[in-house]
């Protein structure tokens, strides 16, 4: 994609460059469904990484779920994790690559169901990693089944009569749970529901990334997102739904900001991999 700018046209009075697509965002058509929020969140992440000059240092972990192909859109080093294990994979990277910027990008099934143990313990250890947690309340890729974050009463392909607390339990506010842990430097929840909220979400992602850069512990941003296809709504309806019942269940805002003072055992590392083994015996 090429933007016509005053520099490129060289003519006075031509459009002035006020923004351009970050280079770290790949030029390719999306595999995400029409109206899906992943694209917005990818874009925000690309902007933040670029603004903080991080792409060349980033090692990112892709989840299992719709965002499994995140590496198709973000031109940074990526490793694919088994379903839910991204925080463990990120821990391994962090512990041998102290200089890297380490990122996970996970959905709600990945982070709040199958990967609960991994996210809780990465947070408890205060791992110096940043988790981008996309909560759309559904398993999108497998056909719209109930997720741990699915709202009470919400119909999905595996809760066809609506989520019934007596049978299926309650939605998990996992970001609030994680915020309890002293190793968590930053935990916040934003939304992609409108332009103003998107701006706020970007500020949260930037703060979370900065904390890692400055040596702080675990940081997490939950992005409330939509799934028009899985929810059985138009894109516009899904955004209205996001602003209504979804936000009622998952309030927006910064839940905890302990800054860089939070524990970060991954921050201090002396040994670089590849250094020859010492003569100890």
């Amino acid at each position, binding site marked *: 994609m090429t933007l016509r700018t005053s520099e490129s046209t060289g003519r006075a009075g031509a459009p002035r460059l006020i923004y351009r697509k970050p280079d770290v965002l790949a030029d390719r058509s999306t595999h995400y469904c029409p109206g899906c929020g992943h694209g917005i969140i990818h874009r925000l992440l690309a902007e933040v990484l670029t603004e903080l000059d991080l792409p060349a240092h980033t090692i990112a972990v892709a989840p299992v779920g719709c965002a499994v192909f995140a590496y198709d859109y973000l031109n940074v080093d990526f*490793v694919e994790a*088994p379903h839910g294990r991204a925080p*463990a994979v990120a821990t391994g990277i962090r512990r041998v690559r102290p200089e890297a910027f380490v990122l996970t990008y996970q959905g709600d099934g990945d982070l709040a169901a199958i990967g609960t143990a991994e996210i809780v313990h990465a947070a408890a250890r205060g791992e110096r990693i940043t988790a981008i947690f996309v909560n759309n309340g559904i398993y999108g890729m497998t056909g719209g089944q109930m997720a741990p974050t699915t709202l009470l009463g919400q119909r999905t392909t595996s809760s066809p009569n609506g989520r019934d607390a007596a049978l299926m339990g309650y939605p998990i506010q996992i970001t609030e749970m994680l915020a309890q842990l002293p190793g968590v430097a930053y935990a916040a929840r934003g939304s992609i529901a409108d332009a103003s909220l998107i701006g706020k979400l970007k500020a949260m992602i930037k703060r979370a990334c900065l904390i890692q850069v400055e040596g702080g512990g675990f940081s997490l941003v939950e992005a409330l997102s939509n799934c028009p296809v899985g929810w059985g709504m138009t894109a516009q309806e899904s955004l209205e739904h996001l602003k209504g019942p979804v936000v009622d269940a998952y309030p927006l805002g910064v839940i905890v900001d302990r800054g860089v003072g939070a524990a970060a055992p991954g921050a201090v*590392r002396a040994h670089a991999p*590849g250094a020859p083994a010492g003569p100890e*015996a």
Partner: protein
Amino acid sequence: MTDPLESATGPRPPQAETDRRSRVLMKGNEAIAEAAIQAGCDAYFGYPITPQAELLEWMARRMPELGRAFVQAESELGAINMALGAAATGARVLVSSSSPGISLMAEGMSYMAGSGTPMVLVNVMRAGPGLGGIGPSQSDYFQATKGHGHGDYRVPVLAPASIGEAMELMATAFELAERYRTPVMVLVDGILGQAMEPVELRFRCPERRAFDWALTGAAGRPARIIKSIDLVPEVLEKRNAALQRKYAEISRREVRWATECLEDAEYVLVAYGTAARVARSAIEKARARGIKAGLFRPITLWPFPSRELARVARHAHAILAVELSSGQMVEDVRLAVEGRCPVGFHGRMGGLVPTPDEVVGALKALHGKVERTRERDREQQQKRQAERRNGQSPHPHAVVDGPAEGAHRVEAGAQAGTREGGER
């Protein structure tokens, strides 16, 4: 036959190092851990489980001392995936567990095999199934050699029979892992993990290579991706074909085995790990009782030394597989032997170890059976010759399918002929 131990251990250490050799008493788990450290292990991830806990504990003390990474994970799932992350950056990574924990690691192993991520995993086997018990066992042979997790993949499996050999094989394991971009398993049982033996403090650190696949941050180069997913079947098939080519190369180049007393052996014990130690004692006892026994010891369980064992089987009266299981490796033994001689089995389960006397008993039973069969063969041959002399046509040759006793009989007869022909 080339010296298999030479091929197993690679180049000998330089003289200066040899001079510094000394023997100390070390526990298996600790010796394995230290050997990994000396082989340049950058990171260790584990979770407590008996009988491998000392390995984790050794690493907990030593790795931070050396400024290297140690994490006690929240589970074996956590440990293997931490290993995936660290290994994806090109670090030399060790993970260890025991049987139930290894089951949990199957998922990660499959991803690492699929994405070509090198890593060494030690399984200090205990008795199963389920929670089973904490006694030594070899009942994870199928799991280790037949794929472990989901998908079409293999993992090189190294099975030392002593603590000293385990130490040597740790360096070999890292070498294989990095050469072939694959997880490698070192398979020991609870005895090798828990026992103490005098060992030489002789270590080897495989040379470091630059990896053109490692994730280090995409500075000045295109971004790299380590993944196993490919939703286009044609592309995924190509990926799989490349994997299979790699496995074919490993099968061709990396088979390791050892033999003892095979020169004049008529009865061959096939055993690995602790079972091989028992077999070694049984051979002495059997020879004292007039049974010429020898040992064939696979060191790589995958790739299994099939061709080498087949050669041995051509000259053996019978083979007896000895395992700390219900009989798992014996299936690979039968596949290798292909009916060339009878194959017997002796094993104990539940954390028990066969005694040398038990093995000698099994050997004597096999010996008696083979002798009776050979006697019958001789009688039948004489009968046929007599019939031929009397002008009667001989019975059509019976073709027996499968490992029925008849098949053994035919083979045993044919073999006796070979031996009389002086091919040995």
